[in-house]
Structure formats: C-alpha cells, structure tokens
C-alpha cells in the first residue's frame, strides 16, 4: 500500500512521539518504532486476537488492548504507570493460578514469554489461590509434546494451523473456565493428527505447552533468551525460533 506523507500521524506513548500510518494499531506503531508493549496472544505475523489483555494501555482515561485499538492522531497512550502495570500483573497472576506453571520443572523456562512478560511487570508471586487443575500431557507425537498444564489459550497455534498451515489441527472447546485446547484427530491425540514438526503451529507457542522432543536442554538454564535481558529488549520468543 502506498501511503503519502500527509496521511501519517503521530501520538504520544509514555511521553514519546510515535508515528503511525492509518490502519495501524497502537501495538503495530509502537513495535515499528522500536518500543515495547507486553503481549502474549499477539504475534505480528497473525491477525490481532485481543484475548490475553496483557497489552492493556490507558488511552483517554480508558483501558484498551493495544493490539486491537487503532492508532489515532494526537492520542496520549499510557503504558508504564503503576495502574497499567498493576492491571497487567493481575491478569498474569490469574493466568499463572489457572494453569500449572511449575517453572523449575519446565523445559521452556528462561525462554518462556509468560515468564518474561511477568518479569517485565514486576510480578513476584501469583497472589491468588491456585486452581491446580488436572490436565493431561500428550506425548503421542514422535517430534512434539503438548503439555496442557501450561496452555494459556492464546490461540496462536489455532491461528497458525488454520491460517498458515491450512490444517485446523487445533481448536478451543468449551466456554469460560471450561475453555480448553482440543486437537482434531480421531483419538484427540496429537500423534494421530496431521500435525508436523515443520508446521508453523509448531513454532508459535509463547509458553511451554507445545514443545519439540529431544532438545529440552540444548541451551542450558542461565543462557536462555530472557535469562540476561528483559523481553522489552530481546522481543518475542517466536521471533527467535527457527521454523
């Protein structure tokens, strides 16, 4: 799309001037300007989903999700106040207690976007009462495992499989608290589906729910993506995956 200079606008983001072109979301413009807004269900390669709410920002006294809210001329966006960071922290704490996120036992630890975003918001503890849900681990596929304990329902694998791989291997079933990831195969198991290690869906999970087998600790703990530098500097884990 050809955009004339006159159609460009700008808005204020934590005091900084951010340029945008019409049609861009706040998230698009901020990431393009090299700034950061925390996010989990957003991946620039896919249509915005707006479900995890971690990218909440303050605009004109309201809270909106930056990945779905269009940028507008002259708007003032707050992404760093304690009110906004506190809202994000509470959302993350709810995600942590809703699943089973035992970081010391997780192969993804250190390169996990849920962890990294939680570090970014200053989360020290999950605060709420844990659900300790009983969920399955599916190791039926030769190359990948799915640990449903860690799924945060971001639907990136659903979108990747449907929109990129043209397979629809994944879907979300149930409503509200009963929402859960399901696999399209006769048995409901990954090994009996058309899922392949080369699928885009195999390389977009922001947490340790979809993991390659046989490579768990190739990169030692302490030398992983978010071990030394925050996610605001190194970016999404999916952007560092070789597909």
């Amino acid at each position: 799309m050809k955009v004339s200079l006159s159609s460009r606008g700008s808005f204020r983001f934590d005091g900084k001037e951010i340029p945008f072109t019409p049609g861009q979301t706040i998230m698009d413009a901020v990431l393009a300007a090299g700034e950061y807004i925390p996010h989990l269900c957003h991946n620039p390669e896919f249509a915005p989903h707006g479900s995890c709410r971690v990218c909440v920002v303050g605009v004109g006294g309201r809270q909106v999700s930056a990945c779905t809210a269009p940028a507008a001329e002259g708007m003032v966006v707050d992404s760093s106040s304690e009110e906004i960071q506190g809202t994000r922290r509470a959302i993350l704490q709810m995600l942590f207690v809703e699943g089973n996120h035992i970081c010391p036992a997780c192969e993804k630890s250190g390169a996990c976007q849920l962890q990294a975003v939680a570090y970014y918001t200053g989360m020290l503890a999950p605060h709420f009462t844990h659900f300790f849900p009983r969920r399955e681990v599916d190791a039926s596929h030769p190359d990948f495992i799915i640990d449903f304990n860690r799924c945060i329902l971001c639907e990136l694998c659903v979108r990747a499989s449907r929109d990129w791989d043209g397979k629809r291997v994944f879907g979300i079933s149930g409503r509200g608290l009963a929402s859960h990831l399901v696999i399209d195969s006769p048995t409901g198991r990954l090994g009996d589906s058309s899922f392949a290690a080369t699928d885009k869906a195999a390389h977009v999970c922001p947490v340790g729910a979809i993991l390659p087998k046989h490579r768990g600790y190739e990169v030692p703990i302490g030398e992983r993506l978010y071990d030394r530098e925050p996610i605001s500097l190194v970016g999404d884990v999916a952007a560092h995956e070789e597909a």
Partner: protein
Amino acid sequence: MAEKIRVATASLAGCFGCHMSFLDIDERILDLVELVEFDRTPITDIKTIGECDLGLIEGGVANAENVEVLREFRRHCKILVALGACAVNGGIPAMRNAFELKDCLEESYVGGVGIYNPGIPNDPEIPLLLNKVHPIHEVVKIDYFLPGCPPSADAIWTFLTELLAGKPIDFPYTQIHYD
C-alpha cells in the same frame, strides 16, 4: 548499639536448596550477623521460635506439621517472607496435585518399583499429608515474596540488606527468576 534484628527460618515442603542458597552468601554472613541474631533456624538448630522481626519460609505446605510451623512463624514474626518457588507457588512438590493422594502413596509404598514390605506408613508421629500441596500465602498472610529455585545468594543478599536498611527493595533484572 541498637538491638539486633531477630531472624528465624524454616524449610517446610522444600528441599533445603533455598537454605543452601542463603549460605551461599558466603563470608557476607559475617556482615549479616553484625546486624541480625538468628532465632529458630536449621542454622542454629534452635527448635522453638521466640519473638522475631523477620521469618523466612522455604517450601510449600504439604502436611499438618507444615501448617502448624507456618502458623507459629506468622504469630511470632513481624515480617514473613516466602523464600523460593515452593513457598511462592507450591513448586515441585505441588506436582503431586495432579494425582489423588491415595494414588501417590500407593505408587510410593505399595505398587511402585523395587518396594519391600509394602504398606503405607501410619505411625502417629508421621505428620498427616494434606490432599494438596499449597503455596504458603494460601494459609497465612505473607509480606514479601522472593521467587527462584532457588533464589540466588545475591538475590537473598539484596533482599536482606535493603530490607534491613529500610529501603524499598529493588532487584537487578538477573536476580528475579522463577526457575
């Protein structure tokens, strides 16, 4: 000289790794004992707790004795701290929450590999297990949380020195991790 800060520590359903990490502050412990007096802790081997300013709790709550010790610490400590992943969210021991307690016991003492004299221990001196392992903030109010498996000696040192100095506690990025 001002009276020393009294510190107590305990390991509940943990592995003592957090206490080992605490000892990894190495010779800095000499600076620490200038400021603090250790009360009940595995380091002094004192078994009963007195009135304390600070309590550090490692491990989650897995049995009736853990509940009793934790409540006793809460009663006697002005500030109570969850030290490490298990105290913060249950950690590795909480992975048993994915199973019925009965199944865990039968796997360990009845039907598991290499078991002699099968039978679930029931001596009255053995604390009764809870159905689930809980983070300590689900049992008593906790004032500070220091995550990590274990929190590094440097993180523990930052926490203690800034707390004792009465400052807001500010950790460098690399000192806060959940693993």
